[in-house]
Structure formats: structure tokens, C-alpha cells
């Protein structure tokens, strides 16, 4: 890709400073690079001491890594954000309506908008959810929508995260770190607050409690345990919300409720924010070998005795094969044109699409339908011939397992490097809270940045970093 193909969020396409970065640029020019370098190190020390780390799968337990943090904020104007958040809200409402429909009448299939096999042949469809009415009608209490930008006014949804989106703790800690290190920046720029997220999360979850829960429902966070890659975040959120952080073996079904073992006996839980996958949630009803879950929790759930956030079975909405139908889904349930665009997607299950993809592998990104974290993915333009040949084989063997998309010219935002400000590709994951009363979108979200020059892979598991994300008050 040539430089002029790429939109830089600070400099646009033609080296003209974009308005949201005015004050920042002014500040930056007045700073000594040496001081900023020292600040960058200070930030890392802060992260290490606070223990903001993630565990790397398949390595020794002691392997806790920092996600690199870059001190240059990613800045979005209030107007840009307003447009984006309308689109996000529309999409999240549609996802929720879709989930309700899929586990009830399946009108969207009857209407012919979505082929039956997309659900019938999909492992993410959870029969145990059929006919369940989750408290408050909410399926996806917490959603992360992954966005990429290619131009001034062009955002695309790359992926919906409707199961257990992670990363919100980095959004919060990044802001906290910036506030501590550069308080003067926040005095001059009017940046919308993200710090209320934990209390918003708690009230949003409480608002989804089962009807019998009373005025202050008991909320708890369920973690797979300290070896989970996101354990820091689980502990962080429980701490910030002021609720218990529990593991499966702390919980039992007692007197028809899910209850936690406390020093004073069992105490029932009303809302469980679980960070454990469906499969492992209930060894009585799902994977009998799971030691992470709570036997019988699905029974209590079906009986209306607990809220599980997110609801089991929401994976059917963020499956990459379903993703390609999101424009139809948004229209079907909201009756409106989608405000946010999907990346054009070829479903390799369709022969014509497959043929096109096989012919153009060098230019496309191919993704596994059920993969995540940037694994099992081919990025045509940077792939070796051998990689491409291998993927060609895989595609021919199991075409329905893959989708393909054009390689987007992701926008860049500068990072602070030895050479000063250098552009690096970014994406954005805003976090959305859903309750019966409202859809609450935290202004900004998590900006992930590919730290290698020219790289499009922003995943932290593959060397990506993060930035503080600012939405300005206009």
C-alpha cells in the first residue's frame, strides 16, 4: 500500500493537521522528547507495578506480559463520535432483537432473509436457550464492536463481540495513566469521561436482575481463575464495581438459587457477570468435564432465578458467518438502513464467492469463521507464497469454514517512537452496556495499535499495543 492510500487520523491524507489534534500538537511541540521518553518508561513501570498484565496461553504460569502502551492519544471529535454511536446503538439493538428471535420464533428465517442453514449448521446455536426469556429481555449486557476507519467519514464494523468482550480494563487504565502523567493535557482538552464505566456496568447489570431480586441485587463476576489470560481484568472489574470475584468452585445451587460460599454460609447471587465460555458454564448441562462452571446454573436460569450476563448462546450473533448478514439483520429488526457499514465479505461456502477468493488470495484477508485473536488468518498482501498455497488447500477442503474480505487500508495514528511521531495502524473497540432502559456507550473505547511499521495486526497476543482514546466535547 502506498502512503497516500492511507488515512492518518492526525494528518489526514495530505499532511494537514486535523482539527481534533490541534491542541495536542501544540502541546507536543513544546515537550522535550527526552522527557516524553522518560514518561513512556514511567508508564510502563506503573503498569507493571499495578499488575496490568495478561497471561500468555501455553506458557509457564509466571509468564505475565505487559501490553505496550503508547502515550500519544487517539483523538475523535464529538461530532464524529455522535455519528458513530448512533450506528453502534442501532447495531446493538438489532443484535439483541436477533438473539431473541433466533431463540424464539425465528421470524428472520421464515421471512427468507437468513438461510436456515446459517443457524441449523452452526455450533454457536445453543438449543438450551430455546424459549428462554432472559430477565429484562437483555441478551448482550456487554458488547464490544470492533471498528476500523479508512477515511474521514468511513468506518467499518470489523467484528461484533457479543460473548464476553474483553479489554475494557485497558481502556480505563490507559486513561488513568494519562491523567497521572499528563494532567495538563486534560486541562486544555475537554475529553469525555470514561471513568464511570465500572459504576455504569454495575447499575446496568443490576437493572437486568430477575424480578424477585429486590432493590439492590447481588452481583458477582465469574472468572475461570488466576491463570486465565484476562484474570487481571476480571479482578479489576469486580474491584471497581465493589462486587465479589468468584470461581466455579465458590458457587453451588442452594435452595434453587445460585449461591456463593462465604465465611458466613451461602449467599444467593442475582446477577452473574460471567467471563467463562458457554461450554464450561454448566457441567450438568454442557461439558461434563468442566471444572470452571456451576452444575445446574442453567436450570436456575431457566427457572428465572438468576441473570447470566451475557446470556448463554449469544455467540450465534457474533459468528463470522452471521456477520456477513448483519446489514440484513439490522434492517429486518430496526426497519432502518444500517448506519454502520460492514466490510464487504465473501462467504466461501458459496461457490461463486469461493472461486473469486481462490483467484484473488494475494489481495484478500481470509478468516476462519469461528476463529478469534487473529489466529488462523491469512493476510494476502503480506503472506508468503507458501502460506497462500496452504490456505488454498484449506479453503478447498472446508470452504464453509472461511470468509474473505478485502485488505482495508486501515487508518493510522502516530505513536511516539525514537524518530518522533510515526504512523501506525489502529482499530477501535467501543464498549456498550445494554439494560432494559437504555443502551449506554462509553465515549471512546479501546484503541489497539500495531506497533510494527506497516503491520495490520493489532492483537495484543501478536505484539499489538494500546492507546488512550479521547472523544472531545465539542
Amino acid at each position: 500500500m502506498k502512503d497516500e492510500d492511507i488515512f492518518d487520523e492526525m494528518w489526514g491524507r495530505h499532511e494537514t493537521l486535523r482539527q481534533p489534534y490541534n491542541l495536542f500538537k501544540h502541546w507536543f511541540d513544546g515537550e522535550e522528547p527526552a522527557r516524553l521518553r522518560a514518561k513512556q518508561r514511567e508508564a510502563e513501570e506503573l503498569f507493571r507495578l499495578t499488575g496490568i498484565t495478561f497471561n500468555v496461553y501455553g506458557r509457564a504460569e509466571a509468564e505475565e506480559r505487559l501490553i505496550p502502551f503508547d502515550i500519544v492519544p487517539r483523538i475523535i471529535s464529538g461530532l464524529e463520535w455522535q455519528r458513530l454511536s448512533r450506528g453502534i446503538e442501532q447495531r446493538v439493538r438489532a443484535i439483541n432483537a436477533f438473539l431473541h428471535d433466533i431463540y424464539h420464533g425465528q421470524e428472520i428465517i421464515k421471512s427468507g432473509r437468513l438461510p436456515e442453514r446459517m443457524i441449523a449448521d452452526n455450533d454457536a446455536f445453543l438449543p438450551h436457550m430455546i424459549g428462554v426469556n432472559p430477565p429484562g429481555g437483555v441478551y448482550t449486557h456487554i458488547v464490544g464492536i470492533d471498528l476500523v476507519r479508512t477515511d474521514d467519514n468511513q468506518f467499518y464494523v470489523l467484528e461484533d463481540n457479543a460473548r464476553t468482550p474483553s479489554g475494557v480494563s485497558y481502556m480505563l487504565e490507559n486513561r488513568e495513566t494519562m491523567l497521572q502523567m499528563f494532567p495538563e493535557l486534560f486541562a486544555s482538552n475537554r475529553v469525555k469521561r470514561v471513568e464511570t464505566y465500572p459504576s455504569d456496568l454495575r447499575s446496568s447489570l443490576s437493572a437486568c436482575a430477575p424480578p424477585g431480586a429486590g432493590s439492590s441485587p447481588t452481583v458477582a463476576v465469574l472468572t475461570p481463575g488466576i491463570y486465565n489470560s484476562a484474570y487481571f481484568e476480571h479482578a479489576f472489574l469486580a474491584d471497581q464495581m465493589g462486587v465479589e470475584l468468584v470461581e466455579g468452585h465458590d458457587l453451588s445451587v442452594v435452595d434453587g438459587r445460585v449461591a456463593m460460599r462465604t465465611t458466613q454460609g451461602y449467599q444467593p447471587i442475582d446477577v452473574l457477570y460471567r467471563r467463562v465460555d458457554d461450554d464450561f458454564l454448566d457441567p450438568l448441562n454442557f461439558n461434563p468435564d468442566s471444572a470452571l462452571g456451576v452444575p445446574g446454573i442453567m436450570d436456575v436460569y431457566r427457572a428465572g432465578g438468576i441473570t447470566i450476563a451475557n446470556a448463554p448462546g449469544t455467540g450465534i450473533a457474533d459468528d463470522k458467518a452471521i456477520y456477513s448478514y448483519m446489514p440484513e439483520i439490522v434492517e429486518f429488526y430496526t426497519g432502518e438502513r444500517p448506519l454502520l457499514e460492514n466490510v464487504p465479505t465473501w462467504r466461501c461456502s458459496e461457490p461463486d464467492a469461493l472461486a473469486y477468493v481462490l483467484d484473488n488470495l494475494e489481495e484478500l484477508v481470509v478468516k476462519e469463521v469461528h476463529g478469534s485473536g487473529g489466529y488462523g488468518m491469512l493476510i494476502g498482501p503480506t503472506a508468503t507464497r507458501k502460506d497462500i498455497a496452504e490456505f488454498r488447500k484449506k479453503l478447498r477442503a472446508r470452504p464453509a469454514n472461511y470468509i474473505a474480505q478485502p485488505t482495508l487500508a486501515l487508518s493510522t495514528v502516530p505513536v511516539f517512537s525514537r524518530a518522533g511521531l510515526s504512523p501506525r495502524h489502529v482499530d477501535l473497540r467501543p464498549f456498550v452496556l445494554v439494560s432494559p432502559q437504555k443502551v449506554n456507550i462509553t465515549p471512546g473505547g479501546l484503541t489497539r495499535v500495531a506497533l510494527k511499521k506497516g503491520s495490520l495486526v493489532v492483537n495484543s497476543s501478536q505484539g499489538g499495543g494500546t492507546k488512550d482514546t479521547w472523544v472531545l466535547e465539542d
Partner: protein
Amino acid sequence: MTMQLTIDHTTTYRFEEPVHTGLQQLRLTPMTTHFQTVSNWVVYVDGGHLDLGFFDHHRNHVDLVTLDREATEVVIRCRGDIETTDTNGVVGRHFDPAPLWLFRRQTDRTRIGPAIRRLARQVEGETELARMHNLMAVIAGAVEYNTGSSAPDWTAEDVATEGHGVCQDHAHVFIACARELNMPARYVSGYLMMDDREEQDAMHAWAETHIEGLGWVGFDVSNAMCPDERYVRVATGLDYPDAAPVTGTRIGGSSEALSVQIQVAQQQ
């Protein structure tokens, strides 16, 4: 055409080592429908307690039982009266929350292999109904009813390969073949009034398939007939584990011994 039945069903588990913790799901409560009216149905448990009840995704009534700590014996007893009507096996329109396509999905227990495929290929008939009757006959001819001759975890393919089994196995083979023929099919667990005796040592099982125009229709391969007024429908599912009368998980309580006593009597 109608029949008054009284059912009394006791399941006893004995453990050599006491139970530490355990849960059991009971699918033991028949529902009132247009062909069976249930009255005075009660479920009691000794050595555990009923914690909650709910309807599962097949609209079965499920009771969740927590086993008592240190229990060495758990007794589950249910009893009640049922008035049944003969409908020639026709259960009727599909109005469950589960979509029909779900019943075309094979499960671990009905996953097909060459033996099932061979059976399905033999099926003939002009209409769906005729083909399903023919399927029942084909299976009855190929899989001999023989108590104690199969293992409880056999798959349909195992049964079709071995050529013998009990009612559960017949039902699995029927379901697997019907689905192979692209017909929605499901497993039914229930009771059967026997003409020659009241005491039984197991529940009965049969299959249902969805036929255009009729809806769900039952087929009992073991007795080579469609259910009549002697049949009581208790629970349905995609296969046995989905509809089983008792499923559970337990820590402690090793060396389980199970005994079942069932009485299905016609009221005089």
C-alpha cells in the same frame, strides 16, 4: 378408546461411599395434552430435596434435585393418575419453541454409519406416512428385541450393526434413519400399560417423526405399532440423554447400584 391408568414409579440409587455433593435432573412429570389428562401427579425424593422446577427447551417439566450430603441411598418416587385417549399415534402439530430443523440434526447417539444408511435405503412407500410405517417394519426385521443384550451407551449405528437391542435402541435407530431420510424425529420416554402384568422394571421408549399434514406421529418399533391409549408420554428430546428420566452429576457416592420398580395399572 380411553383408559384410566395409575402409575407408581420408584427409582432407588444406593451408594457404597456417601455422596459429597450431587444434582439430578428429573424428567418424570407427564404433561396434560389432548390425548392424556394427568391428575394427582406427585414426585417425592428421599435422600435429596427438590430445589426447583422448570420447562426445558423441549417443554419437558424438569425437577432439579440436590442430593443430601452423606446420603447413601436416594429414592425417587412418582405417582399419579392418567386418562389416555387413542389417537393412532398422532400427537399433532408442532408448537414447541424448538424449530423443526433441530429435529433433523443427528446427535452423538444417532450419528449414522453404513449400517444405518443400509437400513434407510431399504425404506419405500408412496407417502411420508407409508415410508415411516415401512421404516418401522424394516427396523423390526433387522434389530431383534432382546432385553439385556445392549449397552446403555450404544449409538444407533452400534445397534444396527449388532442387530439387537431394547426399546431405547429401537428408538435411536428409528430416529437416525428418519433423520437420514430428512424427516424431523425425536425420542420419547414414557410408560406402557402391559396387558399381561402390572409390574415392570423399566420405562418404555419410542420415537416420533414429523409428517407433513399430520404433525408428530409416534412409532414404537419394539411393539411394531403406533402408540395407542396404553401409552403415556412423559418426556421428549433429540435422543435418550436429552429425555432421560434421571440425569445427574455427583462428587462422592461411588459404586452406584440402581433399582427401578414401576407399576402401570388400569383402574377398574
